[in-house]
């Protein structure tokens, strides 16, 4: 009758079908339960970590890089925040991305493509404050767009001391490979040259990080934890901005270098190389233009990145005669008042070779003072002959030649001082050392190579009586809280006290060389300047012009070396540059109206050369 009591086939079939359905249901619920328990109990830890990663975002905050201050404590390099815009996509639907893109296009003058996919990317750097504020104001409609802050290195005086300061840039792959162990990250900024590179670990500081809880749109919900970045330490430099500026101005238009050092401590007051460059170029993340690259890196642009003060090596020419003179006196091969005849040439060796004085007709009878004043070659040929190669080399070494000065800059060249053994072993020469080589060396020619910095240090040692200081650029390291971390102490590399009488002779002779000799274009009234010109012959072209000086003679406070590559004679080219630098160092000294009051002979000498 009724469906329920009908035990016919259909009802039975229904019952059995219900059993299969019930089985299916039970299996379904069992499977769901197993899956749920597997996810929550079996893999719960994994998912809990994932949810933690989801919600917690670590934002690294770069540490402000330490500043550079000059010796008066005035900032010359600082770091200024650079606002940049980046896209950290958490938007998962493409419609929303299109909306963000459209909105962004309206806000920024230059279109930025936020791209597709989950890829995060930098959209633009150097955002102006106005742009940043506009974007921040529209943040709710720009999910995923964030504004970051990166301190940008600013060289406040542009080209000033560019070679000393160096520049910074994004760490390269190879640099990262070397320095990753020191805690450098792949996106860190690294000092690439100069002090920026040498003191990078002190300057960089420790980056901070904040842990923030974010929602699915990347919006900050709350701070969880924060570690403030620790600013890098500031460096107080020994540089005197006035002198540095004067040196650079005086060198302008030349290829050359000038180094000014305090002979009592080795502190560098100025270190200039010409031409210079503006390190700010590298702070901007914009790629360099091809013209700029041409100017910065090619020979045609005189290689402005090259620091001629420490990396260029030239023959010293006549400025080496100071070493020859002092060595002759110390070794006792000459007496200060001993006269040597200069007929305009000397014959050396067997078979004899003629070495000429620059003054073809000869200087006549020359004592030490006259020889230094007139830069008589024959006199020093004779002294060199008497000293011999070994003693001459030892003297050069005592004044720091042939070795790095250990200045706190990277890539310093160490110059070269030859000796007989070297000459014999040299694969391209393989010759015996002739007396002529010694003679050549005694006037700073031949195989001698020096850097302008070495000559400044040598001059300082002459000025202070034989102490070779390690030249330094940093007088103090001040940490971000203002505490002095590393006060500067003068460091002596070599000390070879000299007979004060000998020193006196040489100082006076060098003073006379400026007052009425080859270096007269470096004269200043009211300041006793001692100096020596040098004109280094070289196979590449015009002579290199040298001038070294220290002042005041009675109590030297400044020693300097000037070198102008292929500039001509030292007296005509380098000495006036030195005068301008000295004027800046001693503002109380006065320029002489004109060299017309000078003895005609001295003027004439200089016109020809030395």
């Amino acid at each position, binding site marked *: 009758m009724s469906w329920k009591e009908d035990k016919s086939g259909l009802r039975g079939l*229904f019952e059995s079908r219900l059993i299969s359905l019930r089985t299916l*249901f039970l299996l*379904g619920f069992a499977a769901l339960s197993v899956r749920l328990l597997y996810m929550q109990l079996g893999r719960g830890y994994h998912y809990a970590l994932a*949810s933690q990663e989801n*919600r917690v975002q670590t934002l690294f905050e770069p540490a402000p890089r330490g500043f550079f201050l000059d010796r008066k404590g005035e900032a010359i390099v600082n770091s200024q925040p650079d606002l940049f815009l980046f896209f950290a996509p958490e938007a998962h639907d493409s419609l929303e991305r299109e909306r963000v893109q459209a909105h962004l296009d309206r806000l920024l003058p230059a279109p930025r493509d936020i791209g597709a996919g989950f890829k995060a990317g930098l959209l633009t750097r150097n955002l102006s404050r106005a742009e940043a504020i506009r974007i921040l104001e529209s943040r709710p409609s720009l999910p995923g767009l964030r504004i970051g802050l990166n301190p940008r290195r600013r060289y406040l005086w542009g080209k000033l001391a560019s070679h000393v300061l160096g520049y910074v840039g994004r760490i390269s792959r190879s640099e990262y490979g070397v320095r990753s162990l020191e805690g450098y990250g792949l996106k860190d900024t690294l000092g690439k040259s100069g002090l920026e590179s040498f003191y990078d670990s002190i300057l960089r500081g420790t980056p901070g990080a904040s842990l923030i809880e974010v*929602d699915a749109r990347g919006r900050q919900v709350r701070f969880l934890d924060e570690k403030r970045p620790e600013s890098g330490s500031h460096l107080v430099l020994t540089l005197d901005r006035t002198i540095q500026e004067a040196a650079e101005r005086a060198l302008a238009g030349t290829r050359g270098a000038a180094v000014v050092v305090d002979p009592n401590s080795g502190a560098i007051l100025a270190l200039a190389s010409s031409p210079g460059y503006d390190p700010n170029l590298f702070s901007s993340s914009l790629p360099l233009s091809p013209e700029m690259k041409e100017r910065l890196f090619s020979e045609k642009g005189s290689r402005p990145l090259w620091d001629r003060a420490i990396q260029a090596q030239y023959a010293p020419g006549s400025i080496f005669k100071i070493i020859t003179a002092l060595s002759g006196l110390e070794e006792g091969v000459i007496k200060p008042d001993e006269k040597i005849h200069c007929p305009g040439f000397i014959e050396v060796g067997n078979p004899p070779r003629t070495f000429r004085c620059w003054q073809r007709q000869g200087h006549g009878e020359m004592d030490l003072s006259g020889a230094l004043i007139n830069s008589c070659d024959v006199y020093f040929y004779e002294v060199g002959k008497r000293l011999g190669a070994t003693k001459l080399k030892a003297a050069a070494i005592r004044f720091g030649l042939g070795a790095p000065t250990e200045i706190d800059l990277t890539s310093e060249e160490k110059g070269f001082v030859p000796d007989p053994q070297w000459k014999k072993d040299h694969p391209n020469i393989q010759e015996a050392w002739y007396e002529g080589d010694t003679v050549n060396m005694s006037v700073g020619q031949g195989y001698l190579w020096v850097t302008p910095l070495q000559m400044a240090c040598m001059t300082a040692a002459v000025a202070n009586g034989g102490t070779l200081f390690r030249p330094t650029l940093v007088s103090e390291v001040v940490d971000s809280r203002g505490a002095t971390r590393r006060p500067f102490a003068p460091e002596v590399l070599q000390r070879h006290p000299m007979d004060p009488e000998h020193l006196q002779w040489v100082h006076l002779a060098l003073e006379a060389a400026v007052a009425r000799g080859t270096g007269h274009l470096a004269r200043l009234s009211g300041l006793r300047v001692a100096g020596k010109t040098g004109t280094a012959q070289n196979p590449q072209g015009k002579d290199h012009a040298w001038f070294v000086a220290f002042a005041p003679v009675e109590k030297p406070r400044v020693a300097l070396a000037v070198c102008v590559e292929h500039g001509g004679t030292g007296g005509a080219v380098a000495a006036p540059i030195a005068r301008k630098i000295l004027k800046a160092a001693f503002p109380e000294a006065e320029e002489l109206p004109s060299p017309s009051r000078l003895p005609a002979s001295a003027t004439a000498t200089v016109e020809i050369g030395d």
Partner: protein
Amino acid sequence: MTFADFKERYLHRMDWALLAAVVGLSLFGVVILFSALSRQGTVHLFVGKQIFALALGMALAALLLTFRYQILQAPAPWLYIISLILLLALLFVGHRIHGARSWFTFGGFSFQPAELAKMTLILCLGWLISRPSFQEKPLSSALLACGLTALPMGLVLLQPDLSSSLVFPFILLGILWASGISAFWLISLAVIGLVSMGLPLAQALLKSLGKTEIDFLRVAMIILLFEGLIFAGAWLARSLRLLRTPAKALLPCGLFLGALVVGTFTAFALDATLKPYQKMRLAAFVDPSLDPFGAGYNIIQSKIAIGSGRIFGKGLFSGTQSQLGFIPEQHTDFIFPVIAEEMGAVGGILVLLAYAVICLRALAISQEATDRFGAGVALGAACMFFFYVVTNLGMTMGVLPVTGVPLPFLSYGGSALVANWAAVGLLLNIHIRRFAN
């Protein structure tokens, strides 16, 4: 009716387990909705609407208890036709949300006719299998059932609302299976349905993948030709008495052929009429990885939410995945991850248990039903609930494709809540009147 009468009729016969499970889920759903929406300013509006719908659904269920359910048997086809008309009207006057016309709106309320249609389909199929003609001609009745299902399903698909349409064939399969139709026919029908539905989907997928090297038309032609040859050969062999093939083996072949034709036609019709984003939707429905920023991301976040709940959960209102907005659609399709994250395995298993009680009690009610109509309706409801739970939970746990099927009694959505409560009302009615008298 005296109280004793009422007690005798209702309280003593009530299916308390089913009722407890449904009431528990519904109330829990309101609480969890608070948590899921707590980030939004409109939480009270949403929860208020949900509570209103819950009250409406409970009232409807109570109303459905007051009369013998058999009263619905005769007008079932008419109810079905009304819902068809509503679905049809929807295509012209429906309110468009997210590109689909799925809603009638009046005032602040909206109504989703697809939810009504699934209930009337259950009633109508129950009516169909309880007809005497069903026992005489089960096969043609089964074909009629397919047609009855295809109509509302097709109309829902045209909105286009894929997720709402999926429940229809599942209800059909369940009822047909229980009605005793032979497994052979059932499988044949299922395959045919899959082919006719699968072809347009496959075409949409291939199109959006940009695989132009696959010439869909040519593939379809080759299949048709192949099938035609088999069919013609079999027919020929049979008519020449070379082969003693029963006629019923040929029928599915012919039907299959027809399904191919229909499917191919639909594919081209869809291709010509659907807008690109609608095609993309179809394609993403077949392969969610086509839309990694939508479905792929959602599933990852959903799984993280569920897994990170661990044993006891992060506490109500304290789920980081849910409260920080990592879970998409967390008040509708992805409500379960919120529960599992905040209440842990304890909450998740309790929810599963409640659903198991509902589904198994519905099957039991179907078994106890006093007539075929009641048995069919209860079974349809059981299959409907089971389908929702498995596809939704399977989706949130990353084992089934993303279909956008809501979770009964928990997901936000008034029409669904009312319809589900109506189903519960019917189930309780059938249960209470399980005795012949």
